[in-house]
């Protein structure tokens, strides 16, 4: 203990300790400013992203609304109104065995 006190009382050690103190202080402030800035930026980014998601969701909802409107509109009556007619005498072709070969 006595040896440590003796060491501290030396001018050179004191200077080093003081320098370390100042450096730590500045580092602490710098880190504080850095982390605060990052936090604020991230918070703003997050808010912007939420807004963006909300806007995209709104767009999506509008598209889905349109989808359901169109779904109701496209039916057989609409097809007939456009001049489509029912297919008559539909013929189907069957193969009892697959024709493709390796």
């Amino acid at each position, binding site marked *: 203990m006595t040896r440590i006190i003796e060491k501290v009382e030396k*001018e050179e050690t*004191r200077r080093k300790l*003081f320098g370390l*103190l*100042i450096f730590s*202080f500045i580092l602490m402030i710098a880190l504080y400013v850095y982390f605060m800035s990052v*936090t604020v930026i991230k*918070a703003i980014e*997050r*808010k912007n992203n*939420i807004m963006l998601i*909300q*806007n995209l*969701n*709104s767009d*999506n*909802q509008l598209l*889905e*609304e349109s*989808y*359901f409107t169109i*779904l*109701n509109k496209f*039916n*057989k009556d609409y097809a007939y109104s456009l001049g489509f007619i029912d297919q008559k005498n*539909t013929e*189907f072709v069957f193969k009892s065995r697959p024709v493709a070969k390796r």
Partner: protein
Amino acid sequence: MRDGSRTRIKLVGVIIFLFGLALLGRLFYLQIIKHDYYSEKANEQYIGKSSQMFERGEIYFKKKDGQLISGATTKNGFLVALIPKQIIDSEDVYNKIFKIIEVDKEDFFKKVNKKNDPYEEIAHRLNEDKKKEIEKLNIDGLRIYPESWRYYPAKNLAANVIGFVGFKDNDLLGRYGIEYQYDSVLKGENNNKDINFFAEILSNIKKELKNDESENGGIVLSIDPVVQSFLENTIQKNLDKFKAEQIGGLIIDPKTGRIIAMAIKPDFDPNNYSKVKDQSLFINPMVESIFEMGSIVKPLIIAAAIDQNKITPQTTYFDKGYVDINSRRLNNFDKKGRGKVDMQEVLNQSLNTGAVFVEQQLGHEKFREYIKNYGLGSKTNIDLPGEIVGKISTLESKRDIEFATASFGQNIAVTPIEMTMALSSLANGGFIVKPYIVDEIKYENSDSVKTEPKIIKQVLKKETTETISQMLSKVYDSILGGQFKIDHYSVSAKTGTAQMTKNGKYLDGQYLHTFFGYVPSFDPKFFTFLFLINPQGVRFASVSLTPPFSDITKFLINYYEIPPDR
């Protein structure tokens, strides 16, 4: 102490003093000079917004290609609120905002005159454009806050299945349908996305420490919106045509119990459920109502008797047009006798005397056993709320008449879903399967849970179902002179017409029409069930429900590209 050390100590002291001074100055600026500004901001954040924002999992429809379409979602917008004491010229404010949004004049002035009230909401659900227009007015005492609400983009589509969210006391909860059944999965915590950032960090830490296991997620329905839309449009036309009280339709995969469409008309728009006067519209009769189903029960009885080798399709009996049991006469629908007829004719002409004959061949004990094995009188345990069980207690009687009437669908009442699952056994090789309407639960933070089809039991032999399907295919091909026969597809179907009952008494002139059918007959992909309550101007289900069934079947064949089977 030496001079150098003193200087350094002074320097450190000055730095600390200046730093402290800067902090004090900033605090003075924030807490004294800008007190009102930040106080108001804080109030806006913690009182105004958070009460209007909520999160809830989405409910999706699933198309045949797996694409998900929202059936219920959360919509974001804005609300306009007043701070009455800050409004100076209320007439001017009203005139300005009335040009942009609809506000009830009387309501506006009532609210603006509450000078001691710190907060009054005057308009809701504004979009971004309206919000910007209001902001441009720059009116003192007018505030705009974000808000969110439950939104159903498909409006009436599958409304009875999805249900809606409503207030119960102060809580927004699912009130009917899937919203109610899966409320615990769907409801998120009322997180305000704009909440203070540090408060949120602390909140998240708290959540981690609490190890909260209740998970939020979305619900994927097995309902295909395209099929659902077609079914709804088709049955709506039928409802209008026959001025009936109600119509319902159900389409399932008979092998898995997967429900592809479930529709009820009339229905409601869940976005405006508060405007619905008749609250019985919120009920889903597919699971919450029981009916005497009429002649669609006959194929179940005939299948049971074939299964027990008591009859074959060629078995004959003599039809007098009536049968007397326990001093009561039971007639055919037209009170006419047809002489010697076989079982195919019993189905083709829906002969009540034939059904009684089959029940007598089967015996009361076996009859009751099969009815119970079909699942009638039991819950299907479908994933929809409010399911009730059918009433088959008359089969506990020792009176022959109870069994005789039950053989053609009277005196026993079941839910449409019970009946559908029982009849599906004719289509799927004899199995009773559990129906389901939720295909998947998508959890936010863990793997999705998919619903696996579940076979409950086998009630009929496979050969029996092939025989009855063959018989029902002939029934469909002969309905109304065969005009609905589809050339290259075998369709099995049967109609039913039953007199309606109220408080145990039969109602004159009021009938329930029922219809079921599946396609293709011997490897069915779809089973359709329809019912129509009290149609006007039509006596039999063959007339009222065969056309919509035919349309639905042709649509399904085309939409799912089902290959022909004959």
